[in-house]
């Protein structure tokens, strides 16, 4: 039985460093190649030595697919391709291809230039890595090789986020990456057709949450920001440069305009303008509304939001600052946080998920004293608010996707084990399909049961269809017969006669003849007539003919009558049939030996 193996190297019962190996139909595919934000050591990257102990990965992988540009999905890519070594194709969508190298470079700068780490990938490696990228368009079927094909679907998580359908022969797997089933202010909702994959590999970040409507969350968010500003406090919103940031900017921008607010909004420098520019150029990837109105007014040209300068953090008075990165683990957001943490008037709003080990995660768990580098501690007095704005599907969304795609098996990654367990139970209960949740390095195996594609001769098919009538009767299935010819790699199903002809074989006729003696005091034609009537009454559903040349035909069995030379009352019946009618012929000879019923 063919099987599909799925092994997470990262994101197995965990969030961060997504990297999932799939082997399907003899092909090996790596899905995402991310890094872990919570670690600064070797655990930061997936353990590629699982694939091979020594040397390059090229010969072990048929392709690598990146779902979107978040670093926990693509952060290890240059390390994998340039430092470990992989020269095969890397697939990602156009926006991901555009934005991914910028984030990688940014990340590299923080790690190498600021923290002074060595043994990390270089700018050149990022460039070389990006040369191996093949861009994907939505819904385009890309033939990786003769057997392996992949197709991208809209995932709605961030700009350019995609789900991928991977198909080899009649086996298939769908990997969702991160996705969002509810459209938001700048992106549409994820969508997939009823592709019935053997396995659906889904993220499960919010496996146990069912979120209230987006409107309420937005109102809450605006209320909190507004209150804080009114008090004269400063609001820090740690974000990643692309994605949620743009959604929240659109939200605040419209709110500021409506309420005629004057407090400044800043966006940490560097990526901002560039990021917004990407949104303008990739407007086809945003939601319907923005796409429709972009000619008149581009939603990504903000009036109220200005670039941030480091010195502004000490300015008096209220302000709102969007700063990167989103989990407060490094960079500008952390610097501002340190400055503002001591004042209870201030507020930090965490609009997304924080990975374990980051400061964001700590303060969200209520930790009020933070140990910083150099043994100093930081008292956290400011308000900490969490708003789930990250665009992941919640439990309801995951179920919705399962209904859309109708997978035969389910596999959960990118979530916490306890939450996964809960969702797994729910999925198995509701859809009665198997649900797997392998840990890192653990392999989940799914046996598939593919049908065998065969070429049927059109003659045979048409004959069968015609016999079946226009509306087939489900209670009376018709059986069709044919010969399957297996020649090299081709499988052809033809009628038996055709098979003989195609293979250049002669038919061998096997016939049987049987004489049956019968006591019947009538003339020969009368006897024949009596036999005809008798058979007619016994054999329902068969074609029985009384032919003028003095024979009775039952299907293709010939029955003749002659009188015995010695006794004219003893009739000799001659039955002759071919092997194809063996069952019937054998039955008839036994039947006629018993004689004709007297009632005739």
């Amino acid at each position, binding site marked *: 039985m063919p099987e599909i193996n799925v092994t997470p190297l990262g994101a197995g019962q965990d969030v961060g460093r997504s990297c999932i190996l799939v082997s399907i139909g003899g092909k090996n595919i790596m899905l995402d190649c991310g890094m872990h934000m919570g670690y600064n050591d070797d655990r930061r990257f997936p353990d590629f030595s699982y694939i091979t102990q020594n040397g390059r990965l090229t010969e072990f992988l048929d392709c690598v697919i990146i779902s979107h540009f978040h670093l926990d999905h693509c952060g290890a890519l240059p390390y994998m391709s340039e430092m470990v070594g992989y020269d095969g194709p890397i697939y990602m969508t156009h926006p991901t291809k555009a934005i991914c190298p910028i984030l990688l470079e940014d990340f590299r700068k923080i790690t190498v230039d600021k923290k002074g780490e060595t043994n990390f990938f270089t700018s050149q490696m990022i460039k070389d890595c990006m040369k191996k990228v093949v861009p994907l368009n939505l819904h385009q079927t890309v033939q990786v090789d003769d057997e392996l094909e992949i197709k991208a679907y809209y995932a709605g998580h961030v700009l350019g986020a995609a789900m991928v359908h991977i198909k080899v022969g009649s086996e298939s797997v769908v990997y969702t990456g991160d996705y969002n089933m509810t459209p938001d202010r700048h992106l549409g909702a994820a969508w997939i057709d009823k592709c019935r994959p053997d396995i659906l590999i889904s993220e499960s970040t919010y496996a146990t949450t069912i979120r209230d409507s987006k409107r309420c969350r937005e109102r809450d968010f605006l209320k909190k920001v507004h209150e804080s500003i009114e008090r004269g406090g400063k609001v820090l919103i740690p974000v990643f440069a692309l994605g949620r940031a743009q959604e929240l900017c659109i939200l605040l921008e419209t709110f500021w305009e409506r309420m005629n607010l004057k407090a400044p909004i800043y966006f940490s420098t560097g990526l901002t303008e560039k990021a917004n520019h990407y949104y303008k150029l990739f407007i086809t990837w945003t939601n319907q509304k923005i796409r429709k109105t972009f000619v008149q007014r581009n939603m990504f040209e903000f009036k109220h939001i200005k670039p941030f300068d480091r010195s502004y953090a000490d300015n008096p008075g209220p302000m709102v600052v969007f700063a990167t990165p989103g989990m407060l683990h490094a960079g500008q957001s952390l610097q501002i946080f340190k400055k503002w943490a001591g004042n209870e008037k201030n507020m930090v709003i965490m609009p997304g998920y924080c990975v374990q080990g980051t400061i964001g995660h700590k303060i969200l768990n209520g930790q009020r004293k933070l140990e910083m580098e150099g043994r100093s501690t930081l008292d956290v007095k400011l308000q900490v608010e969490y708003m789930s704005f990250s665009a992941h599907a919640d439990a309801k969304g995951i179920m919705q996707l399962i209904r859309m795609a109708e997978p035969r098996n389910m596999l959960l990654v990118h979530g916490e084990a306890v939450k996964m367990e809960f969702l797994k139970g729910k999925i198995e209960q509701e859809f009665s399909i198997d649900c797997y949740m392998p840990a890192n390095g653990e392999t989940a195996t799914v046996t598939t049961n593919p049908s065998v594609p065969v070429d049927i001769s059109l003659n045979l098919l048409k004959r069968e269809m015609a016999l079946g009538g226009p509306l087939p009767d489900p209670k009376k299935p018709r059986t069709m017969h044919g010969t399957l010819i297996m020649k090299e790699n081709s499988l052809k199903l033809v009628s038996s006669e055709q098979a003989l002809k195609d293979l250049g074989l002669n038919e*061998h006729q096997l016939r049987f003849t049987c004489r049956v003696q019968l006591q019947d005091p009538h003339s020969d034609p009368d006897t024949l007539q009596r036999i005809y009537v008798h058979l007619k009454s016994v054999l329902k559903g068969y074609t029985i003919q009384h032919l003028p040349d003095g024979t009775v035909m039952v299907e293709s069995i010939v029955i003749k009558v002659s009188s015995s030379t010695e006794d004219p009352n003893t009739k000799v019946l001659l039955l002759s049939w071919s092997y194809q009618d063996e069952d019937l012929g054998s039955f008839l000879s036994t039947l006629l030996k018993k004689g004709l019923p007297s009632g005739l």
Partner: protein
Amino acid sequence: MMALPYITEHTGFTGTVYATEPTLQIGRLLMEELVNFMERVPKSQSATCWKNKEIQRLLPCPLKDAVEVWTWKRSYSMQEVNSALSKVQLVGYSQKVELFGAVQISPLSSGYSLGSSNWIIQSHHEKVSYVSGSSLLTTHPQPMDQSSLKNSDVLILTGLTQMPTANPDGMLGEFCNNLAMTIRAGGNVLVPCYSSGVIYDLLECLYQFIDSANLGTTPFYFISPVANSSLEFSQIFAEWLCHNKQSKVYLPEPPFPHAELIQTNKLKHYPSIHGDFSSEFRQPCVVFTGHPSLRFGDVVHFMELWGKSSINTIIFTEPDFSYLDALAPYQPLAMKCVYCPIDTRLNFHQVAKLLKEVQPLHVVCPEQYTQPPPSQSHRSDLMLELQPPPVPYRRCSVLNLPFRRRYERVYILPELANSLVPSEIKPGISVATVSAVLHSKDNKHTLQSVPKPPPVPPSKKRKRVMEEPPVVQAPKPLLSGAVPLEAFLATLQKHGITEVKVEETVDGHILHLQADDTLIQLEEDGTHIVCDNNEPLRTTLRDLVLRFLQKL
């Protein structure tokens, strides 16, 4: 695409229209522009009597020669456009779309304009390609996808260049030179054009040319109700552009340089000549506007304005209309006329190269392509010459495509597949008899195992059961091969049948089993068993014979 509303709105069409996203968006703009132009034309009483053949015959040229005037239609409305476009389902290049389970269609880049596509229609065994309006030149769109056209049974070829003798690159050079010459002489340049397509290339060409030709201060105007939208839309379809332009987006920079022309105020666009344009208009200048037929749209005003002065120039770039016909109503005209049609579609030379590469079994094309154009009947290079000769078609003709369907795909379910017993007939060739239930749904066929008949309920009339005729069952397979005499005799012996008298005949042998009064006739292509009143013997003999034969 411009005639789409006529089909979807007036014929009772209920189907789906497939198109790429740029085709939909830009097509919408062009239709919107057309509707807008038509609405500006004063509504006169509609006259139809002239369409009567008798009256039309008496009318002056060219009305007299117009064919099938009864089929002429009014322009559609914006409402009809919207309704027509609501039936469009978007597809991406190389996307495989299943139609009724029977065929699969997918669009391929044709390299002619943004989102333009050739189509493949294929089943599991047949493949038809539709190649229309394709270009092998490197302009702004994604290059033409040729490799996917390979292995076609039939290739339908249309939309070749209208200007087989004009070289687009040369025309572009001529265009720039004439433009510069007129401006230097203080004249204005009028370029009648469509609002999308070649204009992007013209603007790009001018972008490079402006500085070297010292045209930095000359204003360029693009006037169309959809000018802004067209320029904006062109920038957001990076996925559909050539590699060069695509990589610009990664920087991120707009893919087309006309963004910079607009930013630096060298290129200005207006919805019409009214409003802002009339106050900001400076001469000498270059104006791009429609409609290229010169019959309607803003271009008409410029013809009236500039037609009388010989320092002005009109440059025709669109190949769809004869420039002489277009100019006819404006004669006498002092304005200079330059004709440099830019048609990047395939010419005959390129077609020959393409077909050599793609190698379709048959080519179907309009009959015009099978002979040289009437005006240049000596140019035998301006026609398609192929082996086998192309199948020509003309308007309203119904063609039978020259292929025979022989096979269809059917799926054998795993349970049945496991139960098949293949036997090797010849080296490398195995056969297995298949008896199965055929299920056909949505043009997809599957074979399932024959369900086991429900066990016969224990019948009270046991005696009757014995006499029930056998249910119609799987007919026995056909047999093939021959029964070798010696081996057969040996087998008989093994089964205790020893008294066999062998008699030679013309075609084979007759075996006489004397003890049982049974005859077996062995021949090359048949075996005949004559056996009375001994059913067990007959079945034994049957099974022994079958051992030597192959079942199909």
